[in-house]
């Protein structure tokens, strides 16, 4: 029962993050919402794995946590500099 409450809360927060991703006036609001959505996805995998009694997909959660962090940093780099190249000088 506790896991079902947690599952409902995580799904509801994913919905709120999606609404912010659509509404957000700046691109950084959308990046923030997608980052939150990625974290909620990791939680969703973990909680629903234990809810159904098959926690075999925790490896996917580990992988997705890593990938979403790298993805957010890549999108931020692109939003700040306009390119993803290695030799962009970071001044400021």
């Amino acid at each position, binding site marked *: 029962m506790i896991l079902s409450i947690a599952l409902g809360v995580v799904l509801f927060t994913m919905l709120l993050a999606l609404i912010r991703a659509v509404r957000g006036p700046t691109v950084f609001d959308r990046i*923030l919402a997608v980052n*939150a959505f990625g974290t909620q996805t990791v939680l969703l995998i973990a909680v629903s794995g*234990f809810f159904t009694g098959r*926690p075999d997909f925790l490896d996917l959660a*580990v992988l997705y946590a*890593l990938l979403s962090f790298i993805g957010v940093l890549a999108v931020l780099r692109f939003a700040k500099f306009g390119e993803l190249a290695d030799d962009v000088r970071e001044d400021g």
Partner: protein
Amino acid sequence: MSAILEFIAGALVLVGAGFVLVSGIGLMRLPDLYTRTHAVSVSDSFGAVLILLGLAFYATDPFGVIKLLTIAVFLLLTGPAAAQALVKAAYSRGVAAEIEAGNGAGRPDDPA
């Protein structure tokens, strides 16, 4: 699982879910990018860590516990780092804050 361990696990998961819900509501209701980033980075990361710690009590084999703790440590480290990178990029792009200090400091174009 004994009753007290089940109580601790349930309490951790519920409190973590409460933090996650608060971060979602803050993401929707707060007026400004910087306040929203503060809400999401603090509550979301901490709530996720609490939920994962609570789930570690439900795991049956030690690899499950190790994986859950790995995710928790990683989220604890990278959540605030991503938020700091986001706010730094937004500030250098000139995203204005709706809530300023009294003397005008905090706007991207302030001379101080």
